[in-house]
């Protein structure tokens, strides 16, 4: 599956789950997904400068009735930890975190970030699911949103290269 098709499938899943505000920070592997988010008229897209501010934006939007998701690399998840702890967990605010799994098995870069991603999520008590099949994405997103709302906690979906599809050549981006 191409990255464009995967992006369309994932954004379709977000909308089925009721998500209507998405904060993002780019990673090259997220390029098509972010473009699909930006192009969707039903989603309010907020491009960030640093991921931690996005946790605050989503918390504020949740408090007034929005359903939010944050899309970032695992490096950005590490950047966001104080806000996740002292805002999301402290106030019991749900949020879907889509974390690109840099340093995943088979990746040639960021192996240290990859090795820390799941342990940090476990330490925070944030439940997470590793997404490998694009066709499973919509159902997983729907269930993750139900869990986040029911538990009133963040839930993470780890975006692997497989689930994001085959990326187009850089020059075409």
């Amino acid at each position, binding site marked *: 599956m191409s990255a464009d098709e995967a992006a369309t499938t994932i954004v379709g899943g977000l909308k089925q789950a009721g998500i209507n*505000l998405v904060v993002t920070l780019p990673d090259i592997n997220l390029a098509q997904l972010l473009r699909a988010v930006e192009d969707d008229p039903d989603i*309010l897209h*907020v*491009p*960030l*400068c*640093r991921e*931690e*501010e*996005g*946790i*605050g*934006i*989503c*918390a*504020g*939007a*949740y*408090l*007034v*009735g*929005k359903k*939010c998701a944050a899309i970032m690399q695992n490096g950005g998840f590490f950047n966001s930890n*104080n*806000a996740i702890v*002292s*805002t999301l967990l*402290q*106030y*019991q*605010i749900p949020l879907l975190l889509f974390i690109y799994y840099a340093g995943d098995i088979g990746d040639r870069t960021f192996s240290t970030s990859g090795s820390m991603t799941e342990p940090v999520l476990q330490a925070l008590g944030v439940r997470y699911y590793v997404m490998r099949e694009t066709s499973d994405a919509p159902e997983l997103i729907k269930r993750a949103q139900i869990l986040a709302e029911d538990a009133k906690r963040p839930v993470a979906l780890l975006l692997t290269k497989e689930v994001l599809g085959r990326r187009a050549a850089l020059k075409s981006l």
Partner: protein
Amino acid sequence: MKRFDCLKLIAAEAKDALVVSSAGAMTLEWNVLRPSDGNFRVRTLGLCSSIALGMALGLPQRKIIALDGDGSLLMNLCSLPTIARMQPGNLLHIVFDNEVYEASGSKKTATACGTDLVGVARAAGIKKAMWANTIDGFAQAVSSAMTADDLCFVGAKVTAERTDVPPYPIDEVENKYRFIRYVEKTEQIAIIKTNLPASYA
């Protein structure tokens, strides 16, 4: 200027605005001057401006006021270009600059050494960003921002002192529920829905 005097002026203008206030004594002072379930106290230093932006984007018909501090904003300066990019016309961002980390032992912040937060806000792309240098100027700035439909940033240099007020009466989770229920009631929307048990289906 005294922060408490400035907060009194905001309280007189705030009406039913939702107010997000940064960690520290300011929140306690504000809560005494305008006790309301429409107040949200921030506990993550720096996140005040971002939480207020999220509210402003989520509820564009409602005025949102962020009561920020210099230490807080310095920790999350990147919220300013993001706010400028989104241009929420219903957001009033007020920064009380006392040049110290008041709640953390009163060590100097960077604004004590020349950083100009209004200059930073303007350079980030917030056109209506101004210092209020007198209490009358502050009153005027807040009053005009409350009736305007564009993004506004007001800085006020205040003395590093706190007014003796009672502690914040509720914890974070109660603050969240009260705030959400207040928004639900005043906006006539449902935010937290509960489902019937499966046996009812």
